[in-house]
């Protein structure tokens, strides 16, 4: 009786451990490629399907979060990187990581067809390659604007007017790449001191800072906050989805950054990572990028995207990525000290 009980106990324990262990390992038929990305979640399935259709032996596993979070995560894992390839992350972030020796150079097949501005010119072979640009925009809810009698803003300066007090929402640049490209563009447009003055004034009108760069536009679309500082793709998408919003490109100029990829130095899946790199600069991939984004790295591909603000391409600033990458930490720390504790009554 006793031995039977003990046997049962042992069997249950062993079985339990086995199943737990199996759950941990999983099947290993294809090459699993661990891809860190900041691309919007609603586009990930599309890219995975298109790529795996062309390379059936590779299985993409996404780890997605906002740009700032992804960058911090990569930094935190510096001594023991987990990702195989970083894909669809801001060029500014990749430059910063590249300076830390995070990546290995690789010239994907067909890179010569890309515009020179769109990939790493400092290293040869390049350590990072741009895919497409995402561009700042303001989402403006016309229904709510009518309720609060808000005029349509046409410039960044407009947003500091008292009439918008409590009606503007923007992403926290510490967590969101969109938030940072806004701050970086304001500094490049206005000069650093004036940009801080501008943000002081804007801060008064901000209802709160969000974690993600798309949240402000989603919240503007649903009328939670009438004016959301976000980016063009999210605005166009919301508008096409039936939201009563105008997508505005402010007159002073708009910030932008490149969604780019880079292969991690010590990846164990180099062949698969290079497959994704090759595929990512192909005309086919560029056409998929263009479905939602108006500016892609290969010239001659892009067609206008529905509901993008008119004239936005002309308003894109001359973006100095190297300056942004170099000054990012300093700017973000100062930003946090000034605005992050918004509960502070003295500020």
């Amino acid at each position, binding site marked *: 009786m006793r031995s039977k009980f003990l046997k049962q106990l042992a069997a249950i324990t062993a079985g339990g451990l086995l199943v737990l262990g199996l759950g941990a390992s999983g099947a290993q038929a294809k090459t699993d490629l661990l891809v860190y990305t900041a691309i919007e979640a609603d586009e990930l399935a599309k890219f995975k399907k298109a790529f795996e259709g062309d390379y059936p032996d590779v299985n993409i596993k996404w780890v997605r979060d906002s740009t700032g979070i992804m960058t911090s995560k990569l930094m935190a894992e510096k001594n023991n990187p987990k990702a195989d390839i970083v894909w669809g992350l801001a060029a500014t972030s990749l430059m910063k990581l590249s300076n830390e020796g995070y990546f290995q150079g690789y010239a994907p097949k067909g890179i010569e067809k890309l515009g020179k501005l769109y990939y790493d010119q400092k290293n040869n072979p390049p350590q990072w390659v741009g895919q497409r640009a995402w561009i700042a925009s303001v989402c403006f809810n016309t229904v709510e604007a009518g309720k609060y009698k808000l005029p349509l803003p046409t410039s960044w300066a407009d947003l500091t007017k008292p009439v918008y007090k409590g009606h503007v929402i923007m992403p926290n640049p510490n967590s969101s790449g969109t938030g940072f490209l806004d701050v970086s563009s304001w500094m490049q447009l206005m000069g650093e001191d004036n940009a801080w003055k501008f943000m002081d004034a804007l801060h008064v009108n901000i209802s709160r800072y969000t974690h993600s760069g798309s*949240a402000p536009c989603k919240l503007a679309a649903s*009328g939670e906050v009438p004016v959301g500082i976000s980016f063009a793709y999210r605005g166009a998408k919301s508008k096409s989805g*039936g939201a009563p919003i105008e997508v505005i490109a402010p007159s002073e100029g708009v910030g932008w950054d490149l969604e780019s990829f880079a292969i991690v130095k010590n990846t164990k899946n180099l062949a698969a990572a290079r497959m994704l790199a090759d595929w990512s600069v192909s005309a086919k991939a560029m056409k998929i990028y263009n479905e939602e984004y108006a500016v892609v790295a290969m010239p001659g591909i892009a067609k206008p995207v529905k509901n993008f603000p008119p004239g936005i391409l002309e308003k894109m600033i001359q973006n100095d990525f190297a300056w942004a990458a170099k000054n990012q930490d300093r700017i973000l720390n100062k930003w946090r000290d000034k605005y992050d504790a918004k*509960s502070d009554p003295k500020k």
Partner: protein
Amino acid sequence: MTGTATLAPALSGLAVKEKVSREDWIMRGILLAIALFLTVSILLPLYFLMSKGFQDKDGTFTGLANFTEFFSTPALFYSIQNSLVITLWTSGIVLILAFTFAYGLTRSCMPFKSLFKGIALVPILMPSLLPAISLVYFFGKQGVITSWLFGYEIYGPIGIVMGEIIYVFPHAMTIMLIAMAMSDARLYEASEALGASKLKTFFTVTLPGMRYGLVSAFFVTFTLVITDFGVPKVLGGKYNVLATDVYKQVVGRQDFEMGAVVSMVLLVPAVLAFFADRLVQRKQVAMLSTRAVPYVPKPSRGFDMAMLGFCGLVGFIILAILGMAFFASFVKFWPYDLTLGLKNYQFDLMDGGGWASYFNSIELASWTAVVGTVMIFIGAYLVEKSNGFQAGRSAMQFLCIMPMAVPGLVLGLAYIFFFNHPDNPLGFLYHTMPILVICTVTHFYTVAHLTAVTALKQMDPEFESVSASLKVPFYKTFRRVTVPVCVPAILDISMYLFVNAMTTVSAVVFLYSPDTTLASVAVLNMDDAGDTAPAAAMGMMIVITAAGVRLIHSLLTRSLARRTQAWRKR
């Protein structure tokens, strides 16, 4: 030769002592195994967390440098202050509401008592994010009754307090119910015979009799609120609290050292409240004498109606919160297109891991329920019923109680430090389903353990003595007597573990991986990305699942009770 010479007296010394049988060794072996589990799952991680607070990013010891940096940040004082303000307001309001509600259930003759009790427990089935999201639909800028806030904003202290009240109400109410059920009717008779007014009786008999229950409910509310981060995450706006600070430091900035510092600050009030509560509960047990007579309320039309009205209102609010989340999850595009559809349930198009998260959560909850129940019940049995080995048993008892004092966020962070340490041989567990199971079992260990202990204490120790004298091995008694008698408690424990594993966010938010995303974390991530309606939809999936399991539990309890519990009736 010298070796045997020194051994001999030692051996003879042992022989004098009571003989430790083989069975005792087996019991001690299992007890040690469970103690070892808890050492690995809570003691060591906490130690690693503590030491991390005194190190810089490269792991060199820096003394109090992190603390100095932290305390010199003005934002911190606001966070501490904010956390305290929120917690005290919530506790105050919840105590009054829960007291009145429980009073209605125990001291009036109002109808539908069991229905109201059931409704009051509904928030237990939700992740704390869900009532917060629901409040956005009521009081947000596009809410249906936003004007009821008189121009105040839901994003901030008001919203947090409202959300927390709903989240902790069932916990406070349950404690109040137990405390009220324990009062002695003879005191009321005496009071009436002496001609005291109703009001005077309330202040001289009811309230003093409840004081331990009140204090206990206060501490439980306090701990739950100060460590919860679901509600402030959704409704905090610009209002920072300690719990969201930990999350921001760790997830937002990947600054684990500062995260460790904030979580140690968070640990202080939680631990204090925990010890105060233990102290008070010990006294509560001693209050009720064997001669006490349970209080039976007499009908009183006005009072009963008033209580019915109050409980009806509270019940209505809870159901409205749930109903709103349910409704909003089907609305196509709030507030401009109110037609209904399943668009928000297309989780694969959103952040958070898609439908896989939901199934992962079910897997986690099932494992937690099975593994946790077996381990916790056997552990409680051995602590209660094994012979001798007093030191080991007290140590075990302490280990079992400890998890309750550790907030989930702190536990999760401690796991990162411990299991992701390059030299840890258990490192292979990191980023897997088993680590989530281990963490969740540990996180909810204490309440389950206390439930098991209570059930076991009700059993006469004679069972063990008789079986022992009949030379029946302990595991046979355990299987043939103890387990069947304790079936209701065992089912309660497994349901408690399952429901909590479905709804918890705090610890697992630091531990999930791309393969083990969870439904509750998905609610958080979708809300973060501005996808409020899909977040509500995923929250509803959790509620429906937890409610389904509860239903199965009550059916099982009923049918099993008929088979195994007939002896309880005469």
